[in-house]
């Protein structure tokens, strides 16, 4: 008796941004800019490219997120795998999809992270502590002199 898990869950975050799609696309795909708001790593907007993002290690999580680029439609859609490792042998396996929809004043940016299932959860303990550390870093980032220019 191994019924498939009903309804893998997903997270959706949407926001209107007062910036043109080309600029938002650059922030989503430029390795140096990504490091300033997401996590440092060797991202390239090339289908099939495998990348590694690194946050500071915490107990039960080495801070590493592994990814693989699945879809690149410039200024429109970006899809990559988002897998955490080092917390449990059976780490988290999800897919992150960014969608840009032009608006009169800029762009509607949508992020969907899909594939949360009960069997994705063994690294819960490490993940909890890691994510909590990420909140409230905004002010510190915004005060970095000269960050983000370009």
């Amino acid at each position, binding site marked *: 008796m191994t019924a498939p898990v009903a309804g893998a869950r997903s997270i959706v975050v949407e926001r209107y941004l007062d910036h043109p799609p080309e600029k938002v696309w650059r922030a989503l795909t430029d390795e140096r800019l990504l490091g300033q708001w997401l996590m440092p790593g060797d991202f390239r907007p090339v289908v099939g490219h495998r990348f590694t993002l690194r946050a500071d290690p915490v107990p039960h999580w080495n801070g590493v997120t592994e990814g693989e680029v699945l879809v690149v439609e410039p200024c429109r859609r970006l899809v990559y795998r988002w897998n955490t490792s080092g917390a449990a042998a059976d780490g988290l396996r999800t897919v992150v999809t960014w969608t840009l929809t032009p608006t009169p004043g800029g762009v509607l940016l949508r992020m969907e992270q899909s594939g949360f299932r*009960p069997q994705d959860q*063994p690294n819960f303990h490490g993940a909890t502590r890691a994510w909590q550390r990420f909140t409230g870093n905004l002010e510190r980032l915004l005060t970095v002199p000269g960050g983000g220019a370009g």
Partner: protein
Amino acid sequence: MSYQSNLPNAPNEVFRSLADPTRRGIFEHLVRDGEQNVRALTERAGISQAAVSKHLSVLKQAGLVRDRPEGRTVHYTAEVQGLAPLVDWIGLYGAFWRDRFDRLEGVLDRMEP
């Protein structure tokens, strides 16, 4: 008549117990079809009654099922509220991304056009 524990579920126990496909199957079966006794569950599971009982006790420990003894039979019911830690955990990821969106806006504001 209730055998519900008032202890909050330990999240790790919930995740661990649902990481096993057979236990997940038993839990889903109880959610779908309502109260069942061990014998009925065993007929569906294709494993020994002892194994089913052990799975049920793990699910009960995690707060995902409750039992109701009746004579020599024990009936089991899914405790859907026991899934709450899972939902909370997914919510944490939501918080992670909202924080990242805030940072992204900061980066965009500082970028050249």
